[in-house]
Structure formats: structure tokens, C-alpha cells
């Protein structure tokens, strides 16, 4: 598997650290009910098909990436910078 980093280009999977589903980008507000934190930290849609997840380009530009990926075929259809998404 190879990921195309928006800054570095196409790179081997070994350069990247997988963190988890993009749910991690939707952090609840401080003081949110426990159920929201449980949902954020533990519960997942976990689709068999297209998903979006967070990868860190550890051995490259050190940017966090949102990767759109098919979990059944390993096809990668998009990689974007978390930083740009938030902007």
C-alpha cells in the first residue's frame, strides 16, 4: 500500500503511522456528557467499504492526513491535510 502525501508525493506505507478513524477530529467540547466521550474515543462505524481515517506522515513531512480508503480493496481515493481541512 502506498499513500500520496499532498506535500511529499507517493510514499511507502512504512513512512506513515495509522492512528484511527476520522472520528478523532470531532473532539467533544470540554464538559460534554460521558456518552459523547465514549462515542468519540471508543465507538466506531467501522465500515466494510469506504472510510476516512487519520494517518501521520512520521517519516516525511510530519503532517496529519485524512485518507479516504476502501477497507475491503485497500484502494485509496483521497489524501488531504488535516491542517487544510480545519482552516
Amino acid at each position, binding site marked *: 500500500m502506498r499513500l500520496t502525501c499532498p506535500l511529499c508525493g507517493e510514499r511507502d506505507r512504512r513512512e506513515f503511522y*495509522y492512528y484511527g478513524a476520522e472520528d478523532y477530529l470531532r473532539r467533544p467540547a470540554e464538559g460534554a456528557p460521558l456518552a459523547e466521550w465514549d462515542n468519540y474515543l471508543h465507538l466506531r462505524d467501522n465500515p466494510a467499504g469506504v472510510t476516512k481515517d487519520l494517518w501521520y506522515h512520521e517519516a516525511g513531512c510530519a503532517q496529519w492526513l485524512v485518507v479516504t480508503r476502501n477497507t475491503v480493496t485497500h484502494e485509496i481515493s483521497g489524501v488531504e491535510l488535516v491542517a487544510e481541512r480545519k482552516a
Partner: protein
Amino acid sequence: MRYSGLRVITEGLFGNRGWTPAWREPSPKAEYDVVIIGGGGHGLSTAYYLAKNHGITNVAVLEKGYLGGGNVGRNTTIVRANYFLPGNSEFYSHSLKLWEGLEAELNYNVMHSQRGLINLFHSDGQRDAFVRRGNAMINQGDDAILLDREGVREHLPYLDFGNTRFPIYGGLLHPRGGSARHDAVAWGYARGADRRGVDLIQNCEVTGIDIENGVVKGVQTTRGAIRAKKVGIVVAGRSSQVAAMAGMRLPIESHILQAFVTEGLKPVINHVVSFGMGHFYISQSDKGGLVFGGDLDFYASYAARGNLPMVEHVMEAGMTLMPMIGRAKVLRSWGGIMDMTPDGSPIIDKTHVEGLFIDCGWNYGGFKAVPASGWCMAHLMATGEPHEVARKFRLDRFATGHLLDEEGTGSQHNLH
């Protein structure tokens, strides 16, 4: 038909014409007392123990493919009871005891072989951790023996004892650990359940779960609607999809774990050997193939096949530990789909829907759990109360903080 040595000889003398199918192929009835979704090891053992322990025989097991076609047929067949935490320890201890009587119980040769499991350690700190684990195993009533370097050499003379990066300090021997024939476990439970009246229905995919006013009423399938008083979801590898039919979002992320097998060789590795520092473990099947694996690929996947970096890593670890295997040819590799929970421990619990139960989240340790998982799931479904040895496998433990984090690495899907 009862299987025996005499039967094998008699059938051999008469051209093997007397064998009958191991189970029926019934059409689904309109209604059952219990429907189990999933005809893998855990689902079949749940059905078996519902009938055997609780007298509930009006049961259907619904399988979308063929019996035993999922993870029970795609694993490295290790059977052990070397857990540390209260909650895990008694469960796997119970499971190992069931394994030890399984062949007589099922009248089926599951080829359970207690050849001994050795976990190697390579530092003083790791030795301390294994001493602690060994004591926990002994306190649980199971067996553990601490081997020093020479003790390991007696058992495993073929290891590279000259390795300076990971010097072998010793190992924790679990003599009752071993392996079994994975398909036979599914087939044995299937046959046992069928003989007690359970309907095993293959090629029957569940497409919906019928719920009225918070109570389960049955399931929709590719072979029509089936009413049921109770439904059990036992589909590790597809748990999130089936649970979503009941409106649930599970604490599970599916990961891929690869395994490898070589060409058949003469007996060379007598134990199950695990090399935790290199993420590598190995045993030899009765057919002669070296069966080995490593760590997860570490990204969410349902592909049932992995990527090359982990293949390379596993081969390197194997060569580091036992260079003698370098000449063996790898025949094939495959990937199992693991229900990874945030703390690395499983779930056997009720759900928010009355009459709907779930058994899932087996991470990469489901095979050895097959007997006790079915035993405890059957107990839960029959009595409405968790079995004593599975009472900590709660679905809500992540929300409440009652984690079972055996590795002590934290409550996050990608850490186990």
C-alpha cells in the same frame, strides 16, 4: 453415527460406503426459540451448549457462507490459558479445561495437542513480567514453569543463542498450551449441535434484525423472515455490520492479522514458541507445515489479506530467532479480520434490545476461546445472567472505565 476406531476399520473393509453426512441440511423454519447469527466456531459452540447445558434445542444457526468459513478456518490454532488479569484469567482457564475434554465430549477428533507453549524473554525486566504472569497462571490453577537460558536450550536447541540484540534469557513454559485442528473444532461442534436438534442453515445471510418496542422479534434473511424469541450475534469479523442492523455502534475497529504456512516438513518444532520482542510466534502443524505469524498490519481493514511490510517484518523476526527455517519455502499467507476492541479483550453481553445478545471483540485471540465463549454465551442467553467466568466482558466497560487491558497499553483501538 458414532465415530470410533472400530468404525474406521469396518468402513475401510467395506469400501467406506457406510459413512453418512455429519449434519443435516434443513430449510429454515418460520420460528425458533433462539437464532444464532454466525456459523463459526463461537456460534456453533454457543448452539451446542444451548442444547447440551440448557436443553434449548429449538435453535437455528444462520451462516451467510459455509460453516467454519470465517476466522475459525483462518487462524494459527494456538490454545493456551496464560492470561494475567482477573476476568480474563478464569475465562481462558475454563476454556482450556473444556478443550481438554473436547474430543470425548464431541466424539470428534479435534487433534488437540498439548505440546507446550514457550514465551521467550530477553531482558531482566521481561523476566520479571513473565514471573508475575506465571504466578498469576499458577494462582488460577493452571501451569507455568520458568525456564532459564539452559532450560530453553533443552527444549529449543535450534534457536539462535548467539543473538546479541535479543539474547535469550529464558522462557515461560505453559505445558498445557498447544494447538488444535481448527476446522475440526467447527465441524465437531456443528455435528454435536445438529445431533441435538439444532438446525444449521448455510448460505443464509441475515439482512435485518426485527425489533418492536425494544424487544427482538426475529431476523430478515436471504432465505426469508425467521421469527425468534432470542437472537445472538456471534459474527466476529463482521460484528459492526450486523450490530448496525440493531442500531448499535460497537467499540470495535476491524484490523487484519496475517499468518503464513510453509511446505510440509518432518517434525522439527515440537512446541508453540512465541518471540514477543520480534512479534513472532510459530508452531508446526500435524501435516508438517510451519505455521507462523506476527503482529497486526495496524490499519482498519476487511481485505482478508495484508501488505508486504508486515510480511517482511515477520520473516525477519523468524530468521532472527531461528535461522534454520530460512530454507523452508512459504507456501501461502492469509489474513484474518480481527474485531479489535480498545482494551484488547472480548465482549459477551446483553444489548439495549431485549432478547438480543452479542458475542464479539475477540481481537486476535478467538480460537482458544471457542469452547468457553459458546459455554458462556449459551449461559447468558438461557439464563439472562452472565456466566461467572465471563462477567467482566461487558459491552459498556469502555464507558464505565472497567477495562480489561491485558497488555496495559491503553484504551485505544490501534494499541493492541
